[in-house]
């Protein structure tokens, strides 16, 4: 009996030894599947992590999640303590996660080194106040811009190299660019608006007008708790009225065109304002013959500074991650200056490190240089814990006004009240 037991022990040890010798840690990275962001598509590249995996004996598993339900899945997974080690998330989601204290901060020394080495717009996107970081923005950040169809401009007698610079010019251009059929129905809008879908998306696409006119979603964008939403003011009225007039007076835009980017790429919209990175990524596949230009959105009047929205997808580590050490190791490897250069060159994206902007091809690439010129006008979204409520309130007001569900003044007053309530509630 004793011999049998000894034999079993020896057998078990022999059987387990090779398995133990080759045991490999695994890091899971959760990202949005599909074409929601150009950068997420890179995770499907099997070779992306090969060097890291070989060097650190770590297996990296990239898991694509449905974008529309990704926040819910992340939260449920965190509650169940069965979550990805790295989350690749929209920076607009960070405040919601912070509200539940769900994220690991970036170590102070690492954050300091990063902020010193990256370009100003990346610094702005990374810094959550006093050098505090909750993740690393990915290369190829988004800056919202006006894109226009050069052929349509020519056809309408406009200079295809000169975009509208002021709101008045913008309205004039849009009127000239609009086309109608024999019955008077609009077949091509001068400017396509986003007016349906998630309220956050609607605010993103109209941020340029709201901010350049003086609206502030939260007065101090780096305040986690407290602060004030400045929505119901002359700027807010002007920003909403701009599109309302284009809908009702100029009839140069229409509620029948749901997705500005798709409409622009299909040639049924001459101008649209959204993520330029996305147009760059989709245009070769969806509209290979399209000749398009890109510039900052127009300012209220000559002499005013144009404003754009800066957005990024961020690598973050949840507190519930099982392999935090390996996760940070992978993030630091992916976000090193060398990898930044290599991956941006490979995927035709804009780099983050100042040193890489001085290297070719970025140094003389016209698209990247145009983006670089646009970045200083970019502002990031506030980090307030009541941010989601503020966005819902403003997005709802925009929809109500454009859909003629409410008077402009009443909708803005209601949005202002709801947004400030959301800020106050989140601060409790």
């Amino acid at each position, binding site marked *: 009996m004793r011999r049998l037991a000894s034999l079993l022990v020896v057998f078990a040890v022999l059987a387990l030894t090779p398995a133990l010798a080759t045991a490999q840690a695994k890091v899971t990275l959760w990202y949005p599947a599909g074409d929601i962001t150009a950068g997420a598509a890179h995770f499907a590249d099997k070779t992306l992590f090969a060097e890291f995996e070989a060097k650190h004996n770590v297996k990296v598993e990239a898991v694509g999640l449905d974008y529309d339900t990704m926040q819910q899945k992340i939260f449920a997974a965190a509650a169940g303590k069965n979550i990805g080690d790295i989350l690749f998330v929209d920076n607009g989601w960070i405040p919601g996660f912070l509200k539940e204290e769900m994220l690991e901060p970036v170590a102070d020394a690492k954050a300091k080194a990063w902020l010193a080495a990256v370009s100003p717009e990346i610094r702005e996107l990374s810094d959550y106040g006093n050098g505090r970081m909750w993740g690393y923005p990915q290369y190829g950040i988004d800056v919202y811009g006006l894109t226009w169809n050069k052929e349509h401009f020519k056809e309408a007698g406009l200079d295809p190299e000169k975009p509208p610079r002021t709101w008045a010019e913008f309205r004039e251009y849009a009127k000239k660019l609009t086309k109608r059929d024999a019955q008077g129905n609009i077949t091509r809008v001068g400017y396509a608006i986003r007016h349906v879908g998630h309220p956050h998306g609607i605010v993103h696409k109209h941020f340029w007008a709201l901010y350049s006119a003086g609206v502030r979603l939260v007065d101090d964008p780096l305040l986690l708790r407290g602060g004030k939403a400045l929505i119901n003011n002359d700027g807010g009225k002007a920003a909403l009225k701009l599109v309302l007039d284009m809908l009702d007076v100029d009839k140069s835009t229409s509620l029948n065109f749901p997705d500005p980017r798709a409409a622009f790429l299909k040639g049924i919209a001459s101008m649209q304002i959204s993520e330029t990175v996305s147009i760059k990524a989709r245009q070769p596949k969806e509209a290979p013959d399209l000749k398009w230009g890109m510039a900052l959105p127009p300012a209220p009047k000559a002499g005013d500074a144009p404003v754009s929205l800066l957005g990024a997808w961020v690598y973050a580590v949840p507190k*519930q991650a099982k392999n935090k050490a390996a996760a940070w190791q992978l993030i630091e490897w992916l976000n090193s200056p060398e990898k930044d250069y290599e991956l941006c060159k490979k995927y035709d994206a804009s780099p983050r490190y100042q040193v890489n902007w001085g290297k070719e091809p970025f140094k003389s690439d016209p698209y990247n240089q145009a983006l670089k010129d646009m970045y200083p006008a970019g502002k990031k979204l506030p980090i307030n814990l009541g941010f989601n409520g503020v966005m819902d309130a403003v997005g709802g007001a925009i929809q109500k006004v454009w859909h003629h569900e409410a008077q402009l003044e009443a909708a803005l007053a209601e949005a202002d009240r709801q947004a400030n309530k959301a800020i106050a509630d989140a601060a409790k």
Partner: protein
Amino acid sequence: MGWRRRGFRRRHLLHAYLFIAPVVLLFGVFRVVPAVQTLLYSVYKVELLRGRFTFVGLDNFRALLADEAFGQAMVNTLAYVAAIVPISAALGLGLAVLFDTRFRLSELFKAVYFAPMVTSTAAAAMVWWWLYNPQFGLLNVLLRLVHLPDQPWLMSSRTALTAIIIFSVWKSLGYNMIIYLAGLQAIPAQFYEAATIDGAGALARFWRISVPLLAPTTTFLLIYNGILAFQVFDQVFVLTGGGPANATNVVVLDIYRQAFERFNFGYAAAEATVLFLLILGITVVQYVYSKRFEVAY
């Protein structure tokens, strides 16, 4: 002898309980416990990941009363229920009457009508999203063919809820048809024969025999469809996301948003509790009231 019978009965009961235990256990874990938990959360401020629960009494319910978005979601939900339940039941009954007589390819047509029921709501909604597209959608193409003006469908706050109701009727029609068909086929043929001999026409037979004898079926469908309609979510989430301008925001979507986008779990639980009480109340009233119309045969 008595003790032997009692022992046998005890064993019999034990076996019966053992057989139903897995289902009871699963139902308890996945249905009863979360439902009780939700009722409990409704009186707390819940910070789930922090593990912090602050008792707030009825504060969440008071806040609900002043919440315009929730108010509109409730109105939209009631409008949706009021439209979809009678329309899909009436159309289902019409189809069932049609299919009660056998004709060539009737089984194929039945399958065609039933197919939406077994299709994923999200997948079907994606197809309908394109059908509703104002520029390229099939529905506007059909309207143009008969010289009617284009409709904005999902793009307008005035037509979006109607568009969702049309989709939901299409989706639930097949199920209603099958249930009514089963009900019709259970009615003894001699009732119709006797009525025919007495000189009753087709319409009279339908109103005087079919409709009263289908009362239990109708009761079941009204309750079942009503409960499902109050819980509408998937099609709204995919087709409109609750917009435009909250025109299609429904209670379950609002619960989802409060819980998973704004992380207000206590508040979302209070919304869920209100919905639960509403469904329970309407179901009880419907059940008690419908009993009056039941006819035994």
